[in-house]
C-alpha cells in the first residue's frame, strides 16, 4: 500500500491525515512527522486567558493517532529528496514516501530590536511560548504588544480579559494593516483607547532595556514605555528553509495547483507554507489562516489518496473580537476607489462597513461593529456567501449600494443560499472529526433538556388557520 507522509501536525497536516484515512481506507500507511504536538496555534491566546485548559489546545494525541493508524513521528525534517522520494530528519533517519505533504506552517519573526533577547520579551507563537508568558505573568502586569496584527490582537484580547495594563506599538500608520483599511483601523483605535489600551502607531521600538525588575522601551516617536512583559507579534514567515535545493517551486510560499500539488508530482503542500489558488482572481497566494489550512489539508489528502479533487480556491478572511468590538474582513477589501466601494461609517458606535465591487459582484468586504450586533453577524455571513458564490447581483447590487445595511434582501432574492447549499469541497458531506477533547460526544442538547423549559404544548396548536395569501401577482 501507498505510504503517505505528512510533515507538520497543525490543522492542515491533521486534516490531510484524516482525509487520507477516510478516502483510502484502512490499508493506507500514513506517517505524520512533527516537531511539536498537534495543536492549534490560534487557540493559544485563549489558553493564556485561562478560557481553556491546555488539553483543549490539542487537535490530536498519541492515542488518537494510533487509533486511526497514523504513525506519529517526532522530529524535524532537514531535507527532502524528490528523486529518491525520501525525507530525512534531524536525527538522520530517512523515510520513503509515495506521496508527501508539506504542511510545516510558519514561524514568528523576530524584529531587529536592541535588547530583544532579554528575559520578559516573548514571541507568542508556540505552546512553549504561551507557557513561558503564563509563568512570567503575575497579577495584572504592564504588557507591551509589539505588532498590531491579527495574531497580536488575539493575544491582546486575551490580555485584556486578564485585566492587564496594555500598550500596543505598531510600525505602520494604523493597527491591523493587513486586515483593515484606515477607516476601519480608526474605529478600532478609538475603541481601544476607550478601553484604556494605549495605542502607538507609526512608531518603532528602538530599544528594550532593563530598569530593575521592569523593562523600558524606547519608541521612535519619543515615547518611553515601562513594561513587565513584552510580547512580540511582528509577523510570521513560512517554514521553507529545508526546501533549499529540493527543486520544489517556491514563490512567497510553495506554489501549488488546484489539487494542492507542487511542481513535483506526488508532493503536495498545504496551509501557511502553501501559495494556493485564490478563489477570486485565479492567482496563487498564501492565505495563512485556519480555515484555509484545513481546506488545503482536506483537498491535498483526498488527492494523495487517489481521489482527484479540485479546489475552487481560498477566500482570504479574518475575524477578531477586539475587546467586544467585532472585526471581519473578506477578499479584496483593499481598494479605495470610489466607484467600486460602498461604505457605512458611524464613528460613535462605532460601525464601519465596506463592500468592494467588481461590477455587480462583491469581491471584498470589511465589518467593524459591536459584538452584540446580531444583525451584523448575520450580514457578515451572508456577505461571505455573496463573495464565495461570486454572485452576480444584477439590480440588487444597486439596492445594496443604496441600502448597505440591508444585505439580507439581496442575498435571499438572488438565491445565494440556494446556489451554495449542497455543494461540498470533497464531493461528499463533511464528517465530524473523531478527535474529541475529553472524549465528548457531540450529541444533542447541552443545555439540558429543553422540554421542561418550553413547557407542555397542546398538540392541537399545530393547526391555527391562516389566510391563504394571494401573493403579489394577484393584482397584476
Amino acid at each position: 500500500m501507498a505510504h503517505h507522509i505528512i510533515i507538520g501536525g497543525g490543522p492542515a497536516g491533521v486534516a490531510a491525515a484524516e482525509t487520507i484515512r477516510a478516502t483510502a481506507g484502512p490499508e493506507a500507511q500514513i506517517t505524520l512527522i512533527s516537531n511539536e504536538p498537534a495543536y492549534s496555534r490560534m487557540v493559544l491566546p485563549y489558553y493564556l486567558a485561562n478560557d481553556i485548559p491546555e488539553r483543549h489546545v490539542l487537535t490530536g494525541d498519541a492515542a488518537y493517532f494510533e487509533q486511526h493508524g497514523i504513525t506519529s513521528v517526532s522530529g524535524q525534517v532537514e531535507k527532502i529528496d524528490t528523486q529518491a522520494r525520501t525525507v530525512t530528519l534531524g536525527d538522520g533517519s530517512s523515510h520513503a514516501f509515495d506521496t508527501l505533504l508539506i504542511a510545516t506552517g510558519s514561524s514568528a519573526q523576530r524584529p531587529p530590536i536592541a535588547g530583544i533577547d532579554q528575559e520578559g520579551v516573548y514571541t507568542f507563537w508556540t505552546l512553549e511560548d504561551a507557557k513561558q508568558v503564563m509563568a512570567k505573568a503575575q497579577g495584572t502586569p504592564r504588557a507591551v504588544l509589539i505588532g498590531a496584527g491579527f495574531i497580536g490582537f488575539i493575544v491582546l484580547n486575551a490580555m485584556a480579559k486578564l485585566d492587564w495594563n496594555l500598550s500596543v506599538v505598531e510600525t505602520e500608520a494604523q493597527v491591523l494593516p493587513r486586515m483593515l483599511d484606515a477607516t476601519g483601523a480608526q474605529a478600532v483605535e478609538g475603541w481601544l483607547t476607550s478601553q484604556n489600551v494605549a495605542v502607538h502607531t507609526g512608531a518603532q521600538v528602538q530599544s528594550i532595556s532593563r530598569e530593575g525588575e521592569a523593562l523600558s522601551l524606547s519608541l521612535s516617536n519619543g515615547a518611553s514605555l515601562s513594561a513587565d512583559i513584552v510580547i512580540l507579534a511582528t509577523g510570521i514567515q513560512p517554514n521553507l528553509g529545508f526546501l533549499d535545493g529540493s527543486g520544489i517551486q517556491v514563490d512567497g510560499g510553495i506554489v501549488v495547483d488546484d489539487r494542492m500539488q507542487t511542481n513535483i508530482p506526488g508532493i503536495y503542500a498545504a496551509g501557511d507554507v502553501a501559495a494556493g489558488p485564490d478563489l477570486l482572481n485565479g492567482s496563487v497566494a498564501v492565505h495563512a489562516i485556519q480555515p484555509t489550512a484545513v481546506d488545503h489539508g482536506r483537498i491535498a489528502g483526498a488527492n494523495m489518496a487517489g481521489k482527484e479533487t479540485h479546489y475552487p480556491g481560498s477566500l482570504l478572511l479574518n475575524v477578531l473580537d477586539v475587546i467586544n468590538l467585532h472585526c471581519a474582513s473578506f477578499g479584496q477589501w483593499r481598494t479605495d476607489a470610489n466607484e467600486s466601494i460602498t461604505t457605512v461609517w458611524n464613528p460613535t458606535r462605532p460601525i464601519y462597513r465596506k463592500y468592494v465591487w467588481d461590477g455587480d459582484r462583491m469581491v471584498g468586504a470589511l465589518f467593524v461593529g459591536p459584538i452584540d450586533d446580531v444583525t451584523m453577524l448575520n450580514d457578515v455571513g451572508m456577505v461571505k456567501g455573496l463573495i464565495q458564490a461570486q454572485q452576480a447581483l444584477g439590480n440588487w447590487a444597486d439596492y445594496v449600494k443604496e441600502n448597505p445595511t440591508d444585505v439580507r434582501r439581496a442575498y435571499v432574492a438572488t438565491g445565494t443560499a440556494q446556489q451554495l447549499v449542497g455543494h461540498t469541497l470533497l464531493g461528499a458531506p463533511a464528517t465530524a472529526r473523531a478527535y474529541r477533547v475529553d472524549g465528548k460526544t457531540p450529541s444533542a442538547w447541552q443545555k439540558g433538556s429543553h422540554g421542561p423549559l418550553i413547557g407542555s404544548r397542546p398538540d392541537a396548536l399545530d393547526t391555527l388557520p391562516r389566510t391563504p395569501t394571494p401573493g403579489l401577482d394577484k393584482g397584476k
Partner: protein
Amino acid sequence: MKQLRVITEKCTSCIQCELACAFVQTGTFQPSRSVIRVHIFDEQAVYAPYTCFQCDEAWCLTACPVNAIGIDPDTDAKVVMDDVCVGCAVCTVACPYGTMFYNPDSHKAFKCDLCGGDPACVKSCPTGALEYVDMDQPDWLASWADKVNRGFQHMQDEEGGNA
C-alpha cells in the same frame, strides 16, 4: 434526515419562533439571542424565519480550530460544544449562510442545534410556517428568493411613476 422547512407564505412575522429559541438557549426572552431569525421584508410583504440548514459542507465545523463543533448522531445537527468553543468566531466568517452567531455574554459561538430533535421554534409557530420533516436539501429557498425578487422587480417597475 429531518430538517427545518419554512413555508414563507404562512409566516406572519410574529417572531414566536425567535422568542422560543432565545428562551431555550438563554432562559429569557431576548430575540437577539435567537439563532433562528425572521427576515421581515416589508416592502415585498415577505416574511420568513431563517436558520442553519445543517449543510453538508459544514463550513463552521471544518473551520473550527478546536473541534468544538460536532455532528449530533441523532439529528445530524451541527452542534457547538460550549465548553470546548473558545469564541474565536472563525466559524461566523466561514459560514456563507449567515447562520453562525456569537453570544456576546458567553463569548461563544452558537447556532441551531435542532433542540436535539424537538425544535422549539417549530413547536411555537402558530401558523405552521415551520415544519421539521424529512428532506434532503432545503426545498423552500427558491420560492422564497422568487417572492422577494418579484416584489423588488415590481417596486422598480413602479418607481418614477406617480403612485
